[in-house]
């Protein structure tokens, strides 16, 4: 086999692999992306994906626990609109009323957001950037309240 043919072969195999990887990637990007919305965007938008991320502040005084001790209800707000959220499980350490939070899940027919995951893994000093952006979009961003 000459050098040229060998190089050709490597290039062809490489292209085939790159092609299949691209196919895998495109296929995966179709189904597995979680888009992010703030409460005002959810209220305004009627064509939401079945599965997405919702972020904002946990409304003060909104946290309620069911009798089973595990199901919690709270509201996520961007200080303009708020959405009720239901979650069954253990809340993360950094979950607190008045703090930023991101939940993943979908909207129920009654307008409640049923969360499968609650993310509040950012530290105290730090607002999840998506949440900061959602607050900005709703026109309720105050750097003093957000970043510090």
């Amino acid at each position, binding site marked *: *086999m*000459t*050098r040229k043919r*060998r190089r050709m*072969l*490597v290039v062809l*195999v*490489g292209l085939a*692999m*790159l092609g299949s*990887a691209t196919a*895998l*990637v495109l*296929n*995966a*990007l179709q*189904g*597995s*992306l*979680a*888009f*992010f919305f703030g409460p005002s965007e959810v209220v305004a938008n009627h064509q939401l994906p079945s599965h997405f*991320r919702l972020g904002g502040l946990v409304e003060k005084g909104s946290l309620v*626990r069911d009798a*089973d*001790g*595990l199901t919690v209800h709270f509201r996520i707000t961007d200080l303009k609109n708020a959405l009720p959220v239901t979650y*069954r*499980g*253990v*809340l*993360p*350490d*950094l979950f607190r009323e008045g703090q930023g939070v991101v939940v993943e899940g979908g909207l129920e027919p009654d307008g409640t957001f049923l969360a499968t995951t609650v993310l509040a*893994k*950012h*530290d*105290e000093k*730090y607002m*999840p*950037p*998506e949440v900061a*952006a959602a607050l900005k979009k709703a026109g309720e961003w105050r750097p003093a309240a957000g*970043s510090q």
Partner: protein
Amino acid sequence: MAAGRGEPMIPELGHFALALAFVVAFLQMTLPMLGAARNDGRLMALAKPAAMAQLLCILVAFGALMQAFIVSDFSVAVVARNSNSAQPLIYRIAGLWGNHEGSLLLWVAILAIYGAAVAAFGDNLPPRLQARSLAVQAAIALGFLAFMLFASNPFARLDPAPPDGAELNPILQDPGLAFHPPMLYLGYVGLSMAFSFAIAALIEGRVDAAWARWVRPWTLAAWLCLTAGICFGSRWAYYTLGWGGWWFWDPVENASLMPWLVATALLHSAIVVEKRDALKGWTILLAILAFGFSLIGTFLVRSGIITSVHAFANDPLRGLFILVLLAIYIGGALALFAWRAPYLKPGGLFAPLSREGALVINNLFLATAAATVLLGTLYPLILDVLGLGTVSVGAPYYNATFMPIMLPLAALTAIGPLLSWKRADVPGALSRLKFAGAVAAAAALLAWWLEGGRPLPLIAIAVAGWLLAGAIGELAGRARVFEAGALGRLRRMPRSAWGMTLAHGGLAIAILGMTGSAAWKQEDIRDLKPGESGTIAGYVYHLDSVGAAEGPNYHVTRARITLSRDGDMVAILEPEKRFYPVSETTTTEAAIHSTGLSDVYGVIGEPDGKGGWAVRFYYEPLVPFIWIGALIMAFGGVVSLSDRRYRIGAPRRAHATRTIAAGKGAAE
């Protein structure tokens, strides 16, 4: 005037040493490079003392900052922001690298250590290659020293000094995390050696077997540190984050995985350069990319451009500085590559079905895998820049892209070592894998019988069994273990052969662990009052009590849970919630009962206000295998590194022996 409780002058001394290191790095970058171009031995010889002087300066700076952390000198801004006098000593020390400025200092310190190692142990290198490599090392140091001096000074003072500091992020106050960053950095920065050697070789226009032998120990050392670092990090995430997960596809995790994938490819392609004098351009490219990815890993994520739990800096100026540095190093190196690579002499020929061919396939798979991870990591950034919305790319993406690439690669890993160089007998190789095939089928059947169900985990288990049996079988076949004298042959087997078997076998074991915990993990969440119990995977967990205790700088809520099976007590588990009053943060400490084959993992959540507590349990089959496998892989690296032929400085000794032999010949 800065008024601290520590020595007033020491931080200034550290700052001065850093500035001095900058000047030394400039000299180390320019003079030896000039000397190499003009073939001036005296200028080239400056590289070695300069590398030593640079290490000395940076160690002084490092020591000065360490001293400020240890004595809690809160007049130093970094200390005030990231340390507290109530923190135990180990976390005051770890606080040094638990922040942006300090972690940069650790980074350049390790860079200087590697540079000094080349100066000290690199006498076997041709003087020109050594001078140029050290000059490139200095060029890397120069950029990051400038970044520290002009945009991230770790010695900036506060006046007046606060009476006490804020705190190291409580989630980082963990013994595992104290050692995870230095280990990871040893890996990231170690790849700079391959990069420097690659740039030096490009300037020289010459890559040969000797070059590959010189690069190999450095790449191997970096690779094994990276492997161990990733392993520690994943273990830490497993027991601290309280979700029973060990990999979250967080940008920072991806940032350590990408250089690992490319470094793994580089280790394999360098073998082809060494043995067959082929794949030279590709190997050089991998050396550039491996370090490029580790720069991206350390800095792009830290710059705040990609959001991550681990992001330190939120300052846009720093982000810009980092981007410019990345563009200069990676862009510059790639431009040099495009210009000089065509001048490299093409190497030996081989048939597609050969050891070389198998290693090319290995490289293609690893490079493609790294590319899919890169795309997944950058995709949210791309969409955001284009204004197409905010998205997150999570586990489903990687399960659909990364896994279908890695599983065939793992399966082929069993075949590659059985192929001979140049032209291989594939049916012959496959016939030697009959035993591995049987093991694979048995493993899959066993998994199916135990857990039933979905095809993907069964395939993964079969691949792991195939690879484990194939790796052991390859070594056994080479040593002819069923014939007389096998023990002696095993002992005389080159260390690098043992290293390969360990690394491939470790990978198989890690795959077993990942599959088991990903596919057959069980979860049980309950609201328990003391005296109540729940069940998971045949275990009964009984909440005995919940009490309070005090840690050195935190308050503890500790549950006492009795774990039993078939009425017999197995273990007492004491999961904790820790509240750190200084930063008003709570952390979770999981309690884990491990049998070596599986883990029972318990955490305690919030009180429900009516005397009950949320208690969450996981059953994770095979999960310990992940870290055992990864450590075996790293150990394989250590064993291979101890191979006589590859030890740092070995080629010189071989050369010396030859000279003596020649001298003898002449005398006779």
